[in-house]
C-alpha cells in the first residue's frame, strides 16, 4: 500500500514539474516594417520575427517564401531595391551587429535575391546611402549627409565600390576615400559610358560643396579628376544638385553639365584625352550664366545647334535662358507662370521642353525645332482650370495634375495636350495618393481608401476595384502584370489582381501571410 502511494505521489510530482511554463514560442509580435516592390513580387521585412519574405504574385497564384532570416546578433538598418531602379529584382540591406563588441559580425551589405540566395559584401563601415550605376554593373555605398558615427571616428568620404557582376571577395567591394579638399561627399551620380580619346569611361560623380570629383569605374586606380566649382576665396556655398552628360560627337568633346545650388552659373565641363597618358583625361570647366537662379536645365538640339535651356528665377520672374554651347550666344524667354521643372521629351515634331510646377497656372511647351529662330514665339501654353496645386510626372507622356479643388484630379496627356478631369464624390487627399501607370492604365489609391481607382488612359474611362479591406500598401508588379494590395491585418493579408483586368471576379485574397506553417516553428526567434 505504501509503495502504491509513493508511486502515485511520484507521478503527481513529475506531472507538476513537467507542467512548468513554456518558452514563449509565440510571444513575439508581428511587425511589418518595410514593403518593397520587385519585378515579380513584393519583399516584406517583418521585424518582429526578424525575416524578409518574398511574396511572388501572378494573376492566378501567390506564394510566400522566407528569403532572409535576420541573425539574432545583427540588425538591418535600411533597405534599397535594385540594381535597376526602374525594374528592381533584389533587396539590398545594411546589416550591422547588434552589439558592437561582437567580433563575429561586421558591417555588411546583404544582397538578397528573390530566390533566397544572399551575397554578403563586407564593408566595415555603417554607410547610409546606396547609389546604383547604369547597366546594373556597379553600386556605391557612401555616407550621406544624415550619416552618424557611433562610438568612434569615421571617414565621411569613404565609399565602397561594389562590382555587382562579381561575387563578394577581397577586392569586392573595394573601399576608397574620395579627396574633395576636405569637404564631404553629399551625393553620388553616375554618367552613361563616355568615350574620351577612344577609351570608354564609366564615371561616378562624387558631389560635394564647392566641387565634384569624377572617378572612372573602369579604371578606378588611374583616372580621377577633381573639379572645383568655386575657388578657395569664394565664400559661397555652392552645392551641385543636377548632373548630366553628353557624349562626344564629331564637333564637340564629351561634356558634363552641372547645376548647383548657391550659384547662378551652369558649369559645362569638357572632357578631353590627356596626351601625357593614355588612361588619363583632362577636364576643362566653362561657366555659363543661367540668367538668374537656376531651377532646372535641359540640353536640346535645334538643327546642328546644341542649346542649353536653363529654367531660372530672376526677381520673381521665371525665364528660360537659352545658351548656344558652341558660341555662348544666349537669349531669354519669359514664362509668365511659376514653373519649376523643365522636362525634356520627344514631342510630336521634335524635342520639346515641358515647363510646369506646383502652384502654376498651367503647362507650357517649348519646341526645340526652330528655337533659335523663334526665340520664344513658339512657347505654347495650356492653362488648367482651378490652376495647378501639385503636378507629378507619371511617365514621359503624362502628368498627373492636382488642381486647387480637392475633389478633382487631372490626367494631362503631353502628346495631345488634352486633360482628362476626374472627380470624386468627396474631398480626397490626392497629394498623398499612391499613383502608378501600367501600360494604358492609371492606378490611383488615396490614403485610407478601400478601392483601387483605375483610369483607361485611351478612353479616359474611370473604374474602380472595391476591396474587402482598407489599402495599406499598393504594389504594381510589372514583370508579372499583377497588382498587389497589402492590408493592415494582424495576420497579413493581400489582395491580388491582374492589372489588365482589375475586377473583383479576377481578384483573390491570400490571408495569413504570417501564419503560414507557424506551428512548425521550433525555437524562440529574436
Amino acid at each position: 500500500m505504501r509503495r502504491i502511494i509513493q508511486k502515485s505521489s511520484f507521478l503527481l510530482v513529475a506531472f507538476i514539474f513537467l507542467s512548468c511554463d513554456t518558452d514563449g514560442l509565440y510571444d513575439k509580435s508581428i511587425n511589418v516594417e518595410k514593403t518593397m516592390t520587385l519585378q515579380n513580387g513584393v519583399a516584406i521585412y517583418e521585424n518582429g520575427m526578424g525575416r524578409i519574405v518574398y511574396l511572388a504574385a501572378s494573376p492566378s497564384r501567390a506564394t510566400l517564401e522566407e528569403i532572409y532570416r535576420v541573425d539574432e546578433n545583427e540588425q538591418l538598418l535600411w533597405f534599397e531595391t535594385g540594381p535597376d531602379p526602374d525594374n528592381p529584382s533584389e533587396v539590398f540591406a545594411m546589416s550591422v551587429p547588434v552589439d558592437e563588441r561582437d567580433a563575429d559580425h561586421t558591417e555588411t551589405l546583404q544582397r538578397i535575391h528573390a530566390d533566397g540566395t544572399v551575397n554578403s559584401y563586407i564593408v566595415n563601415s555603417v554607410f547610409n546611402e546606396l547609389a546604383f550605376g547604369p547597366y546594373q554593373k556597379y553600386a556605391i555605398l557612401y555616407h550621406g549627409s544624415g550619416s552618424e558615427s557611433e562610438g568612434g571616428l569615421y571617414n565621411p568620404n569613404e565609399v565602397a565600390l561594389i562590382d555587382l557582376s562579381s561575387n563578394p571577395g577581397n577586392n569586392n567591394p573595394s573601399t576608397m576615400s574620395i579627396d574633395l579638399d576636405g569637404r564631404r561627399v553629399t551625393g553620388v551620380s553616375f554618367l552613361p559610358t563616355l568615350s574620351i580619346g577612344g577609351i570608354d569611361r564609366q564615371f561616378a560623380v562624387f558631389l560635394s560643396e564647392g566641387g565634384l570629383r569624377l572617378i572612372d569605374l573602369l579604371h578606378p586606380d588611374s583616372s580621377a579628376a577633381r573639379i572645383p566649382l568655386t575657388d578657395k576665396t569664394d565664400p559661397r556655398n555652392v552645392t551641385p544638385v543636377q548632373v548630366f552628360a553628353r557624349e562626344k560627337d564629331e564637333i564637340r568633346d564629351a561634356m558634363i553639365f552641372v547645376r548647383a545650388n548657391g550659384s547662378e552659373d551652369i558649369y559645362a565641363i569638357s572632357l578631353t584625352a590627356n596626351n601625357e597618358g593614355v588612361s588619363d583625361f583632362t577636364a576643362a570647366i566653362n561657366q555659363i550664366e543661367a540668367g538668374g537662379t537656376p531651377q532646372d536645365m535641359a540640353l536640346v538640339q535645334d538643327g546642328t545647334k546644341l542649346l542649353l535651356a536653363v529654367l531660372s528665377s530672376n526677381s520673381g520672374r521665371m525665364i528660360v535662358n537659352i545658351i548656344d554651347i558652341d558660341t555662348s550666344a544666349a537669349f531669354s524667354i519669359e514664362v509668365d507662370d511659376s514653373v519649376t521643372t523643365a522636362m525634356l521629351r520627344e514631342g510630336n515634331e521634335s524635342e520639346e521642353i515641358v515647363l510646369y510646377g506646383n502652384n502654376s497656372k498651367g503647362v507650357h511647351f517649348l519646341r526645340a525645332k526652330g528655337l533659335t529662330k523663334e526665340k520664344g514665339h513658339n512657347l505654347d501654353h495650356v492653362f488648367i482650370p482651378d490652376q495647378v496645386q501639385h503636378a507629378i510626372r507619371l511617365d514621359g507622356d503624362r502628368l498627373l495634375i492636382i488642381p486647387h479643388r480637392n475633389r478633382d484630379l487631372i490626367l494631362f496627356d503631353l502628346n495631345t495636350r488634352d486633360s482628362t478631369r476626374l472627380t470624386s464624390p468627396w474631398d480626397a487627399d490626392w497629394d498623398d495618393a499612391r499613383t502608378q501607370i501600367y501600360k494604358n492604365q492609371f492606378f490611383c489609391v488615396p490614403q485610407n481608401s478601400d478601392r483601387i481607382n483605375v483610369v483607361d488612359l485611351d478612353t479616359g474611362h474611370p473604374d474602380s476595384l472595391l476591396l474587402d479591406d482598407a489599402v495599406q500598401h499598393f504594389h504594381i508588379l510589372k514583370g508579372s502584370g499583377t497588382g498587389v494590395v497589402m492590408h493592415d491585418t494582424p495576420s497579413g493579408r493581400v489582395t491580388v489582381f491582374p492589372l489588365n483586368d482589375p475586377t473583383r471576379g479576377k481578384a483573390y485574397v491570400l490571408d495569413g501571410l504570417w501564419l503560414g506553417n507557424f506551428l512548425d516553428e521550433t525555437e524562440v526567434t529574436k
Partner: protein
Amino acid sequence: MRCIVRFSFVVTALLLTNSVAFAERLEVGLAVTPTMLQDTQYEAFSEDDLNKIRFGADIRSEVINLGGFRLIPLIGYRIAFDHGSPYSIMDTDLVLHDIIAGLRVRKGLLSWLALCVEITGGVLLADMNSSPNQGYDMSYGDLGARQDYEDFQHTWSFGGLAGVDIQLSKNWLRSRGVRRFGFAGEIAGGYVRRGDIEFEPSLEGGDDSSIEAETRPWGDVNLSGWMVQAAVSFRFF
C-alpha cells in the same frame, strides 16, 4: 465521422446489453483528466502553459473475472477547451473531443482498494476557430473581408492509465441498506499518444460577395502528453 458514431453506438449497445445480462457490472465514470502536452507548438492554443484539462465520462461494464482480475471494457468521451493568442494578433479557440474505447483491468487488493490499468484507443476531433483579436481594428471587417479561421480535423489516439481505485465497501453499503449501487474514486496517471494534426483553416465570415479568399496552412501540432486522471465511478450491481 459517421462510422465512428456508428461504432460508438454499437459498443454502447453491447455494453448496456451486457450490463442488463450481468446487472452487477455496469459502471458510469465521470473524470477530470489534466494532460500535459509535450508539443510546444500547442502554445498557440494555450494562454498559460501546455496543460489542458479534459472533462468526460466513461461507460464500463465488467465482462469477466479471471482470478480476481476483472476485465472491464469501456467507451468514453472527453472534451477539452482551450484558448490561445499566438503572437498577440489573434484569438484561437480549440475544442478537443476524444472518443475512445478500451479495456480496464482491475485487481482488488482490499475490500475498498483496487489497482487498475486501462488502455484505450480512439479518435481525437479538433475543432478550431480563430479570429483577429482586439488589437485589430474590427471596423475593417465591415468592408466584407473574410477574417475568421475555421478548421475541423481528426486523428487517432491511444492511451494508457494506471492508478488506484478506492471504493466504498460493499459490506459497508449493505449494512446501510444499499444493495445495488456502489461508489468509487480513482486517481491514475498515464500517457496518451496521438497523431499529428495539420491545421489548414478556411477563411470564413464576410458574405457571398466577398472576394475569394484562401489562407496558408498553419502546420502541424501533436497533442500527445502525460496525463493524470481523477474520476468518480457509480457502479450498479
